[in-house]
């Protein structure tokens, strides 16, 4: 009984070819909400630092004075907390995983956002409130 069932499965698998794919030559399976890695749009970031405070792994560092946004990919757990927290939606969760690396480096992004002249309220206050 069990033998016949197994034989059927084996033959079917032989005909159908491999169930795996040759990653990374073939891209990974992804769906629109796959949590791959976080990217920043430096033109929109208001350096409020909310992502830094919400990050459970403390992977993100935001330097307000220097206007630098840093992420340590080795610490990042792709939990989506920063993306949810961002008040101006400048963070995006991409669906692809980062390529494997052998050395830990911190990714630095210079924030290019320029505060519009018209606004009277400081953006950082809005973000924290």
């Amino acid at each position: 009984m069990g033998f016949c069932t197994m034989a059927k499965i084996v033959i079917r698998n032989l005909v159908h070819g491999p169930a795996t794919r040759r990653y990374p030559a073939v891209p990974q399976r992804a769906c629109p909400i796959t949590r791959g890695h976080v990217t920043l749009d430096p033109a929109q970031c208001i350096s409020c630092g909310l992502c830094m405070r919400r990050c459970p792994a403390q992977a993100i560092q935001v330097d307000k004075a220097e206007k630098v946004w840093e992420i340590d990919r080795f610490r990042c757990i792709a939990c989506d907390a920063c993306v949810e927290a961002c008040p101006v939606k400048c963070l995006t969760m991409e669906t692809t995983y980062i390529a494997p690396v052998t050395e830990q480096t911190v990714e630095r992004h210079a924030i290019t956002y320029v505060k519009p002249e018209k606004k009277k309220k400081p953006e950082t206050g809005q973000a924290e409130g």
Partner: protein
Amino acid sequence: MPERIVVPFGPQHPVLPEPIHLDLVLEDETVVDVVPSIGYIHRGLEKLVTKREYPEFVHVAERICGICSFMHGMAYVQGIEAIMDVEVPDRARYLRTIWAECSRLHSHLLWLGLFADAMGFENLFMRSWQLRESVLDVLEDTTGGRVIQGTCKVGGVRRDIKGEKLSDIQKTLPEFEQQCRDLTDVFLNDESVKYRLGGLGVIGKSEAYDLGAAGPTLRGSGVDWDARCLGYAAYADLDFKPVSHPAGDCYARCAVRLGELFTSIDLINQAVEKMPEGPIDVKVTGAPDGEYFCRVEQPRGEVVHYLKGDGTKHLTRARVRTPTLANIPPLVKMLPGCQLADVPVIVLSIDPCISCTER
């Protein structure tokens, strides 16, 4: 009387993905005594609770284990919700149930694969993992993560599953169930598997109960105790029976897990049918002040999250008693009398998850 020798088993052993060390005292090929030791991967996650705010700690709680991740998160948030007296919306409870059952499916299929591998049945191993992949795909499509779902939060869930996706999942269930039936047929009726597992690592009903065994190890000895009967999440509204098997050997534990595959499929089906409309979370303010023991049935057995807060954002204590820790005493009782070559199969039959155990 033959000479006694001590053979170390682990911490690195081909059958175990994780480090547990057993000192096996042998007389010829027969095991007469076992001394387990752990601690190779103690990460101190319980201590981390004093460094992270309680809503953030759910991410840490999920990472206690890579397989029953969702249920650790769920146990943690349920504990916090019980302390803070938060009423979770119905839809969130049902969604949690669906994800929890998907996790159970993928965990059991993973275990079945590993078990087949331990027996030396490579084809069956590949087949189990092939089936597991379809469960992981569902999890990825609905939560964004294959094994770390990250959808639980204090007060509800972070993501909703749309109506059409729910019916899509439901449509794939009959085919998946048939594939699982074929797999069950091989595991339970194949002569070589039966011969390999029957009468191996026997632990009786009263002994298993007395030793505090949990999950399939307990139910494989004929005690139909299942923490899901406590009625957390949506289990109180759904109809299911704990699966148990009276034999108490490796075959019985395997049969229990196979039986639970179908319980899980049925529970997902029921949860999709009864899925209520409404919000998926409530806003939670304040901080937990009090203590609670939250018990959840994981694929490996009952987990106890003991949480204690003092009214600040940081909990003072989180203690996690994982099922594998409870299953170590039964394992120590199971092994004496067996052959050295059977040790890997018996160790695997309790589904050891050492990362869980050491936290």
